[in-house]
């Protein structure tokens, strides 16, 4: 058999093999796209991946603070108490005996150019412009369902300019039907792993109008 005939005889197997690899690659890509689309159709699924429980009423016994005009309601656990904050905002904290922040929640009406679209960049930029010597984005998520609205959240950690305290936070910009506001949940980074569940529950119970 000549070289030319051997080449022709081997053609079908090479063609079939190449085509099979191509089809498998396309099938894998399509399967991945379908899986990603399925997870993105539910507002609660991405939130769970972000470490947030699905939106729901705060547990019985939690306290509530309402923003001016009723724009939003911040729920906080009994271990926390209201602390001073900006006019029109609400903050709750648990402090150590020496005054160190152990848990922190804040709700503030929209004040600047923050939006659902630019929130992660806005938040990190504001942190370093205002209070932090450095800030590091850990994760972001959009399309988060809240009670009465939808939000974009960023999880980050930062070091304060004063005292070099290291905090981890989840900060969400939430758009309701008639108002927009921000909820911040923070704790010292060293204790974030054990406290993030409680703070996540407060975020899930945040109500906007």
């Amino acid at each position, binding site marked *: 058999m000549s070289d030319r005939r051997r080449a022709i005889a081997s053609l079908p197997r090479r063609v079939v093999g190449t085509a099979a690899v191509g089809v498998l690659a396309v099938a894998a890509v399509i399967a991945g796209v379908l899986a990603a689309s399925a997870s993105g159709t539910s507002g609660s699924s991405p939130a769970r991946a972000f470490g947030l429980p699905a939106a729901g009423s705060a547990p019985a016994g939690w306290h509530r603070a309402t923003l001016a005009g009723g724009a939003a309601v911040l729920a906080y656990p009994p271990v926390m108490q209201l602390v001073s904050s900006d006019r029109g905002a609400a903050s709750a904290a648990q402090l150590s005996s020496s005054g160190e922040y152990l848990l922190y929640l804040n709700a503030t009406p929209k004040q600047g150019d923050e939006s659902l679209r630019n929130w992660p960049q806005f938040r990190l930029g504001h942190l370093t412009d*205002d209070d932090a010597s450095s800030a590091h984005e850990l994760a972001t998520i959009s399309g988060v369902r809240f009670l009465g609205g939808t939000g974009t959240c960023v999880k980050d950690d930062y070091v304060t300019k004063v005292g070099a305290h290291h905090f981890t936070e989840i900060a969400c910009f939430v758009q309701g039907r008639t108002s927009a506001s921000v909820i911040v949940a923070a704790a010292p980074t060293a204790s974030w792993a054990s406290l993030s569940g409680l703070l996540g529950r407060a975020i899930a119970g945040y109500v906007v109008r």
Partner: protein
Amino acid sequence: MSHTLTRSLVGLALLAALAAGCSSSSSPAKPSTPPSHSVTAPAHNSIPQNNGGDHDGDNNGGPSDGDGNL
């Protein structure tokens, strides 16, 4: 002819994979993203620290609140 047919099939498969990858932007909610960037403080500070500003806890080493820098 055999090489032409092989190249055509490979090219078709790559185009199909590219088209499928581009179609994923229609999801209404994005899952969490991996760590992307860090930010360090600029030279100027909008709100003075050490009780020099609005006396928030976040100007004294406490956690940052959600103000919009107004």
